[in-house]
């Protein structure tokens, strides 16, 4: 991703992103549950087989790999990072390799989309994604009795043979924009850009510890902007950003040095994700 052509700066209107404070995360998994319910993620017959679970938002357990008493643990929620990558090279790793334009980069919101009806399941994007944020549907979804009634009509269900991933709850953005346009057409609003509380992802709202903050990274009124540019100015880090230059829009904050070092563990072998977690 690095080198070659220079970065092309995009005239964004809005650019949505996330700041996750790992010190606050308790690893409860509420974000995962909220995400699955919100986005019609199918439940498998045996959900204890975590290798095959589809988890748009996944909480990983990190350990520093040291023996007692220095043992330390950190939980790391991982949504899709919505990488900006290098626009000259086709944006994020997944967008640059998709042969069907089933996944695309939005220059209005900075969100990486996935169009299920366009995807034909080559899984090239899954190989390209360094965050393992993409999942393949090996089976058609089967909903337990009565669960179809809980499906959200805003999100279409995925069929066998295609790839899916986190969309930053894009359908909520669409709904919020509808309301914004309505208010503007009624004269009750001048700026159609969304306020922070008008568009939040399901995981950010579900987090009981308030570890996940979501908003517009370009809007100084939004908390994420303040966190990145003031509160955690030099502390916020992004996973594999230094190694790969993917320019993710999900920022992490941790008071533990080994966690930050682990975020780029291709360069420094400090710690690695231990098996387990959710």
């Amino acid at each position: 991703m690095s080198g070659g052509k220079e970065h092309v700066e995009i005239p964004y209107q809005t650019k949505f992103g996330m700041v996750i404070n790992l010190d606050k995360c308790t690893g409860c998994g509420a974000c995962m549950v909220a995400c699955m319910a919100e986005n019609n993620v199918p439940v498998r017959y045996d959900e204890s087989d975590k290798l095959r679970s589809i988890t748009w938002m996944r909480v990983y357990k990190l350990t520093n790999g040291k023996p007692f008493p220095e043992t330390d643990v950190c939980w790391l929620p991982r949504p899709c990072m919505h990488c900006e990558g290098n626009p000259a090279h086709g944006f994020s790793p997944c967008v640059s390799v998709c042969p069907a334009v089933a996944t695309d980069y939005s220059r209005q919101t900075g969100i990486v989309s996935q169009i299920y009806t366009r995807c034909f399941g080559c899984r090239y994007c899954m190989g390209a994604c360094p965050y393992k944020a993409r999942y393949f549907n090996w089976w058609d979804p089967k909903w337990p009795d009565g669960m179809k009634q809980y499906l959200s009509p805003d999100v279409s269900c995925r069929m066998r043979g295609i790839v899916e991933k986190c969309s930053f709850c894009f359908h909520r953005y669409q709904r919020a924009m509808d309301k914004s346009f309505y208010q503007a057409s009624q004269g009750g609003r001048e700026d159609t850009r969304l306020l922070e509380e008008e568009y939040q992802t399901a995981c950010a709202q579900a987090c009981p510890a308030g570890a996940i903050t979501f908003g517009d990274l370009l809007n100084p009124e939004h908390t994420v902007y303040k966190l990145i540019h003031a509160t955690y100015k030099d502390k916020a880090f992004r996973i594999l950003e230094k190694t790969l230059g993917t320019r993710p829009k999900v920022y992490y904050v941790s008071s533990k040095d080994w966690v930050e070092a682990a975020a780029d563990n291709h360069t420094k072998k400090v710690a690695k994700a231990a098996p387990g977690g959710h």
Partner: protein
Amino acid sequence: MSGQEHQHKDAPGNGGKGSLLALVLFWGCAGIYASLFMGWLVFPKLLYSEQNQPVDFSHAIHSDAAGMACEDCHFYREDGSYLGAPALEKCAECHTDVQTAEPVAADYTDAKEYRRKKARYDAEVLLVNEYVAKEKEIPWLVYSRQPDCVFFSHIAHTSPEAGAMECKECHGPVEEADTLPVYKENRITGYSIDIWGRNISGVKHNSWDSMKMDDCANCHKERKEDLKGMREPCFVCHK
């Protein structure tokens, strides 16, 4: 060349070969015409089931005589979502009783005009007696129901801050329509013919003749300047 010469030598009097050619031509053409007939006329007829709407609503009366605008019935909710066809409550605001007098045949010199008036009167009687009096919602058949993977927002098209379009630009002169079109449903997909376009050949004279994905995409491309040169990702309309 040598093949043709060979044929000439082999054809005494040329009659047998000529009639064979005519026969092949005739059946060839007949076959093509039969296929076209099947494909363009018979198959589409078989493919779509036809249903009339439960009440034959007249947009013309409501816009002309009652002086109503599109937004009086088809409005937005406060969250920006589009109402579509209004609930019975809206009809009942005016139609608690039958408002028009029953037309008498003797008053009309034109039989066609009488039948039109009578049909309108019958439709109102049906509305009042069957639905308003019984407080039963009208089971409208929705022409525009989209597949599950499609996201469409009316406000994003009509709001001055967004598309700034008129209803007419996509829907045509609906306010002049005296009857509702027959609802034709594709027997295989279950979707209305209106999302494909009623003209089976795909010839389009007006923007409202068909609303397929390409029709949407063409307009979105034309308005590219509004987007300051930005390409729109698929999920503006797909979900």
